Structures are given as C-alpha cells and as structure tokens.
C-alpha cells in the first residue's frame, strides 16, 4: 500500500516519473474503470498527465495537424479542421461514450489502451497518423500501423509517454467512420469501419478501409480497398467493398453478438462508411457523426 501519485505540470517531470516505473493516467476512463471492473489492479504509482499544458491541444502545422496526447474527444470532435478535413476522426471522437466520457477521455489514452474497439484507431490508421512517443532518453515516432501489438498491447515502452499524434494533409479526400450502435449513447463498437477515399471526377482513385472490433487489432483491408479503386463508389461498389471486408474479418462470438451477426454487420458498416466517405468527397453533407446520419441507410 501507499503508492505515489504525482501530478506534474512539466513534461520532464512526468517522463522522470515514467522512467521510475510510474504509470501514466490521463482521463482515467479506461485505467480506473477497468480497475473497478476487475480487469487489472490499479498500478501502485501513478503520474497524472492532465496538468501538463504542452500535452494538450490541436495545432495546425504546415503539412497538417499535431494533436497533443491529452486532447479530449470533445475537443477533437469540435475542431473545425478535423471536422472538415479529417472528418472520420470527428465521427469517431463524437461517439465515444457519453458527453462526460468525451470531456475527460483523451486521444493518448484511447491509443495506449489499445482496445480493438477503440474508436479513434481506425480513422488514424487510414490517415497514416504518426505517434510521437518520448522518454527521458529522447523521442521517436511510430506509425500508427506499428503501434498495436494485439488486444491491449502497444509498442510504446513503459518508460515512454505518447506526447502527440501527427497527421499530414491528404488533399481532397472524403472520410467517414461508422459504428454499429444498439443505442444512441454509451455504446461500445461491436463492429466499426473507416473509409477514406479520393475521387478523380466520379472515379475512386484512392481508398483506405479499416475495420474496428473485427480482428485482434484495428486493421486495414487491402482487398476491399483494391476493389473500390476504379469504381464510381456507388451502392454496388460500396456493397462489394463491404462484402470483401466482411470476408477478411475474424470476428468472435460473445455476449454482445454472434460471429455470424458480426460478420454480416461488418459488411453493412463498411458499406455505409464507404457511402459516407464518397458522399463527403463529392462535397455532399453527411452530418457528423456519420453513424447516426446513416442509420437505416440501405
């Protein structure tokens, strides 16, 4: 008993703490809630990140965006540039939990927790996000595709902190993230899908499709992406991408849904995500969050 809890304002102090084996806590919405659920016991020593100014906030850089690790989901969802140019991230951040969860839960926590159902991972993966991690020894960058090792596991070392996520601009893309939602708030992704597309006139010239909660980690589905490129991204093409993504998924059966239902729903959410991304690429309005806007879309 008698663990230590520090709440530094300087990043250097936080890094010193993680170097000494203290576990970071940001919003605590995974760490503390998981403890109460009995998933793990609360780490002995904790270092809180919430008072470190330089870890929070969204900065527009020459080539794109730099998002501090402790930026909340609410801030992500409300940011004008994200809503306009990285719309799938806004779709995802705006449906995390409830208003309370979105105000206290952070981007860094969402990534470090490495849930296969984490909302922001799919969009960040499709946007080729780079994660900057730092320790007392220095910093390094990890491509989002290399961040996750498995459910709950990342390549971030225990002495390292995620300090920021960097996004570079993808010109003229449309994107959306769609999650299957049984109720309107406080959902967990039973299945989710991201699509990021570029059009040349009416034709899809680039497509990125990721599936969420359908494999041990969030992952892109190359076959579905290939199939979409060169099409008009219309209903048939979207459905075909959905069908291929569903085939590539490795869903499970549990209390939330059967494998069969999950696979069928993978096809639906991918189809809708593609539909939403195409529409946005064409300049049409699909209100954020796309999950709600595309409810019932056939």
């Amino acid at each position: 008993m008698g663990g230590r809890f520090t709440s530094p304002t300087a990043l250097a102090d936080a890094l010193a703490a993680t170097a000494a084996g203290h576990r970071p806590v940001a919003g605590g919405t995974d760490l503390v809630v998981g403890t109460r659920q009995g998933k793990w016991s609360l780490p002995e020593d904790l270092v809180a990140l919430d008072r470190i100014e330089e870890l929070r906030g969204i900065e527009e850089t020459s080539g794109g965006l730099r998002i501090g690790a402790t930026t909340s989901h609410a801030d992500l969802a409300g940011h004008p540039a994200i809503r306009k140019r990285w719309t799938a991230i806004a779709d995802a951040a705006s449906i995390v939990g409830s208003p309370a969860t979105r105000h206290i839960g952070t981007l860094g926590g969402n990534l470090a927790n490495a849930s296969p159902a984490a909302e922001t991972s799919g969009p960040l993966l499709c946007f080729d996000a780079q994660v900057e991690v730092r320790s007392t020894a220095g910093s390094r960058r990890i491509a989002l595709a290399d961040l996750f090792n498995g459910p709950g596991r990342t390549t971030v070392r225990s002495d390292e902190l995620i300090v920021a996520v960097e996004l570079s601009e993808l010109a003229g893309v449309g994107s959306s993230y769609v999650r299957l939602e049984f109720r309107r708030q406080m959902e967990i992704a039973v299945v989710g899908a991201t699509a990021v597309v570029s059009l040349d006139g009416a034709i899809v010239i680039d497509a990125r499709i990721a599936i969420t909660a359908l494999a041990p980690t969030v992952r892109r589905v190359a076959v579905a992406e290939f199939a979409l490129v060169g099409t008009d991204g219309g209903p048939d093409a979207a459905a075909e991408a959905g069908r291929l993504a569903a085939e590539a998924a490795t869903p499970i059966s549990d209390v939330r849904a059967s494998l069969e239902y999950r696979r069928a729903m993978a096809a639906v959410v991918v189809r809708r995500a593609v539909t939403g991304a195409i529409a946005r690429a064409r300049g049409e309005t699909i209100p954020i969050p796309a999950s709600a806007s595309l409810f019932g879309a056939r």
Partner: protein
Amino acid sequence: MTATLAPTLIRQDGRDKVTGSGRYAADLTVTGMLHGAFRVAEVPHARIRRLDTTAARALPGVYAIITAADVPEVRYGAFLKDRTIFARDVVRWEGELIAAVAAATPEIAAQAAALIEVDLEPLLAVTDLETATRPDAPLVHAEWATYEADENLVRDGNLASRSTIVKGDADGGMADAYIVVKDRYVADGSHAVPIEPRAILAEWQGDHVTIWSSTQVPFAARSGVAETLGMPQNQVRVIVPHLGGGFGAKCELGFEPQVAALAQTAGRPVKVVFSRREEFLLPDHRRERMILELETGVRRDGTIVARRAHLIIDNGAYSMDEPFLGQMAAMFAVGPYRIPNVDVSADVVYTNTQPSGSVRAPTGPTTCWALEQHHDVVAERLGLDPVEFRRRNLVHEGDTGPTGQVFERIGALETLEHAAAAIGWGRPLPDGEAIGIATGWWPSFPGASGANVTINADGSGTIVTGAQECGTGAVMALPILAAEVLGMRPDEFRILYQDTDAGPYDGGASGSQTTFNNGRAVIAAATEVREQLLDLAADLLEANRADLELIDGMARVKGSQTSSVSIADLASQAAGAGLLLGRGSGEPPPTPAVETANCVGRLGAESFAAPTFFTHAAHVKVDRDTGVVRVLEIAASHESGVVINPIGATGQIYGGVAMGIGQALSEGVLLSEDGRQRNPYLLDYKLQTVADVPPIHVDFVDAPSPTGGPKGLKGIAEPPCVPTPGAIANAIVRAAGSRVRELPMTPERVWRALASTNGEN
C-alpha cells in the same frame, strides 16, 4: 383532470437529492462501524460438503464470520416458506449466500470472504423452463413437500405454483370460431437496475437493533428480521434514508437479517454496500423469464370467442412473490377484453437461477407484449385494422372480467382512441417506419396503511407516515391531500417518513399503492384534525359548526369576509390545551366479487380491484440491415381513475415508457447453460439512455372509480411499463415485415427474424 389539486408540486426531497445534501444508506457511518461482505455460492446447484472459516478468521482485521450455523433455522417466504437467510446443506443458485464477514475495511472483508473454504459437490442444475417439471428433472428442492405454504397454493415438485382461470367452455368456443390463431413467445428475464446499489447498516443497542436499509418496504423488512432472527417486531427499527430507486427489486425482505446477525455477532455496527455486480447477482428480485403459448378463436366480425393460454414462468431457486405473480400473469393473458370462454393456466416453476420477484408491473409487460402481438396476428388474419380489432373487443362498463368481476366506470376504449389519435394512427410514414399499438390493464392493491397528521403551535403541519418514498414522488405528494382537507397549502407540511418506529404501518413502495392507500390514511388523519379545528373555531367565532369552512389557512363562516380566524391562531390556542392530532387509516375499498369455481391457485389476484386501463402507441424506425430499432415517438393514454398530481403522474409515464423501451429492445439476462448470468454489468446489460427516450405524448382519461383510492384514483407507477414493449413489437412488424417472438427484441434477434425466409408474421 377534474381533480387536479396541484398543477406544479415542488418535491420536499428534490433539493436534497439534486444538490447532494441528501443522505443515502451507503453515505452513513456510525461510531465503531465495521464493513461487511458476503460469500456467495457462485455455482448454480451443489451440496455443501465442508465449510471452513479458519483461514478467513485468521486474517488480521476480521471481527466476525457467520454462516447458517450461527443463525436460527427459520424458513421464510410470503406464500411458500422455502428459503433460509444463509444456505443450509445445499446451494440452489449462484447468488445464494453462504457466509457473511465483518472486518475493519471493505477490502479486508472481501479478502476474508474469499478465504472461506467451501467444498461443494456439484449437482445437476435445472435451467430449462419446459423440462423443469418433467418427472426425470432433478428436484430443486428435494424436501419441497415439507415446506409450509399458503393453503391455496397448487404445487408439485419443481412446480411451485399453478394458477388457472377457467370461464365458459373454451373447447366449444374454439370449435365455433371462424378462425383460431395459435402462437408462442419467449421472454428473457430482466433486471430492475436501480441507480443505487443497495446498502444496509445495522447497529445494536442492548436487545434492539436499528437497521438503515435501502428497502422499498421497511415494514416487511422489519417483520422479516423479527421472523428470521426470532425477536419481537418492536425490537427492530428499520429506517430508510433517501432511496435511490428500487423498481421492485428492493421489495420484500432483503439482506437486513444477515447484516443484523453479523453486527450482533461482531458486537459492532456493520455496513454492507453492494457493488454494481452484486446488485445484479445477489438480489432475489429479477423480472421473470417466461414462455407464453396463446390461442384465440374469433368470429368473422373480429369478436373474440375463446382464449386458451399456457404460461410457464421462472420462479428461480426460491419463492419470493412469484407464486402469486403467476395468477396475475394469467389475468394478463386474458387482458382487458370481452372473452366469453377462457382456459388459461400459469405454471411458476423452480429452476437453479436467481429468484424472480416483483419488478415494476411484474409479468405485465411481458404478457402484454406477447398478447398484443398475438392480437395483431389475429387482426391481420382477419384483415382487420389493429385498432378496429381492439375497439370491437375491449371491455366496457358493465362487462364482466375473466373471473366474472363486473366493471364499474372504466375508460379502456377511450385510451385506445386517444393514443391512436395522438400518434396519428394511419398516417403515411417514410420507408422503414411504422406505428404499433398495445392495450393493457393493471390492478390497484387496496391494503392497510396508516398516517398521523398534526398541526404545530405555529400553524405549520407535520405528516408522519409509514409510507415509503422510492423516488416516484408519491409520498412527496401526500401533503396535497392533507392540505385540501385543512384549507392549507401543500408546502405548509413537512413529511416524516420511512422509519418504522415513527410512522404507522404501510405496505411500502410496491404495487403502485402509496397514494391509493396512504393517501386515504392521510385524508382520514387530516379529517380528524379538521374536526378539532372546526370545534375550536366554532367556539371562538361563536358560530354554528356546520356553517364553517377551512380555506386559505383560515376557519371562517362560509361566505363571510370578516368572521374568521387563522389556523395558526387556532393552533396556538390548541397548543395550550387539546392538541391538534389526527391519526388515520381508513377502510380499504373492497375487491370485486368473483366466480372462480373452476379456477385453482387463488392467491388474491383473481379479481382486479379498481383496475387501470391504458394504451400506448409507438412510432419506430427499423434499420433493416442491422435490426436496430429506434423509437421515435410514444403516445401514452392512461385511465387511472383521476390524477391528483399531474407532474408526478406524467413523470411516472415518462419513466415507465423509458423502462419499457429497455425491456423491449435491450434489457435481458443472458444465462449460461447452467443458469449463471453472463452479463451482470452495465456494459453488456444495456439500459436505455436519456438520448434514447423519444418524445412522449401523455394523456389521462378521467373515470373516477367508485372503489378506487381518494377521489376515485387508481395506481399509476407500474402501468406505463406494461404496454410499451407490445406497442414497439407491433410497430416493428409493420415497419419491417417480420415478427420478433423473443424478448428483448435485440438487434440480432430482429435481424434474424428479418433474415428468416419464412418471415411470416
């Protein structure tokens, strides 16, 4: 709403609850208090071979451990005395208590509970409702025949209770019918999920114990402690601080005897606070699982000639009020319809699962959900509009009910017309959207109840009542009734409530009975005070008593502006002499006469006293690719006799609808093969959130009941749960073309129903 007395009532407990200054049981601490934890079976059925507490006792900080060996061997239960406060020899469900530990901290208590060595020999678990009563099924209670039981209970082995309703000649009716429709529905169990997990704190002083408990029924808790621990009721005091909801799950005896016995053994006060997980696993009140087989014969014109039904209801491992609820379910399987020939049976069967018990309108929503879908199937087969089908069959004043009770003034039909009109029945809707409708009924529960009313020396009023406030606001609204009798304002009264040593007996926050019964008691008590005030005023004003009225805080000669005296002045006079004290109970109204010659299992629900009638219409949108259903709008019309507190009554409808949507779409206990709960936590036991609750149009039909509560009112808290799932189910089939015969109608179940090729309705 002719009898509306208080268009906007500010609740006395509102500010405390909203600001956090109010105290709940878990908030309390008393000097020397220890923390308690339970050790539970965690297996559904087993024989206890060995129970060893040595290692647990050795843990520093442990003060006491008790098991069945440390408490009197008393079997209890309302209708069937089949349970003990700790398991003896055999555990019969996963949440059954084996031992309780008192320790210096909650953590040590939990650790010690885990250290208790329990050697269990597994026994076959009974979980399937249909095979539970087969001769080859293992018995849940091998010694069932030795248990004391209500003399009207019909039982046999795993059959804990059978109730039947037989009227006319069902076979003959079916034979004469133009068509006969038969179908089957299956419902999972569900939970009440009060926001407050329960807490119990017990403190002994000498030979008497005070128990602070989050119970809906303090008097039942008191008598239960007295019965199980073998002490007189006047040595048990039960106090309920603010209660964070109950919805039925905190009815009947809870965990008060175990905590009291633990505190006695420890020689120190002990508090037990449940985790959310324990709140799912340990209480013996969850909504019953059911299988419903329904059969209806109709004439060509749509009038029903015969109803057969067989219901199988999960009692769980022990009997709380479920044996009685079987008879209620049988009444609901007939419904508020004119049916000359009826043959309904309801079997409540033992299984090795969590005991069932009253959860807001027990058996009501499930049975209504099945019956009202069944009725839509019948209407469809006849090519009749669902509203028209109900219009032709609903009961009217003067009709007889399932057991021959004659209906007095009622408004069943009006609720149908009003709900249909409010939702815009028949209007065109976008693809994937539709409206469904369901009608139901629910009894009032007349019973004994008491209250005292006093006027203090300064003219302020105090109501001391045994009634329990579970959050509905029913107790908070009692001043409306006292104020009317005494010509005062509701806010001039303070209410002292939920302390068994302070207020007279009341049945508690159950059966939607508070205003019905305790309202009557408060009026009776206030009327005594009124007589005392009039006596004083007549003397003082030298007026004829019969010419006086109490109005605006004064006693005055009717019509006179000058000849008056304030109630405060009268009260200050009385303070020096005969005090202004009223006590009341009043005579509960009678229950209707019935003919039940051919019925068995008469347990008190064979007639419905002052029944309420209601119709809900639901407008939904179905996502046909995913099976997800969103409720867009609900119209709710209720005939509750009269409504005296519209803000409270409307609030009950909002809450009941929200709870009903949950039962309809997302709330269900998932059981493993051997009867254990697979989703005892809120992430996967999905409640509806505030964002899921649609606009609700509320309408009340006035039909004061001659045998109702005050002013002819009826109960209102439970009914709004009842027709909501049925209305949603009927909307789903109209929107998507397939009928979902499993409850809850989860997205995956809706999806499967839509996908099944024989998607007949």
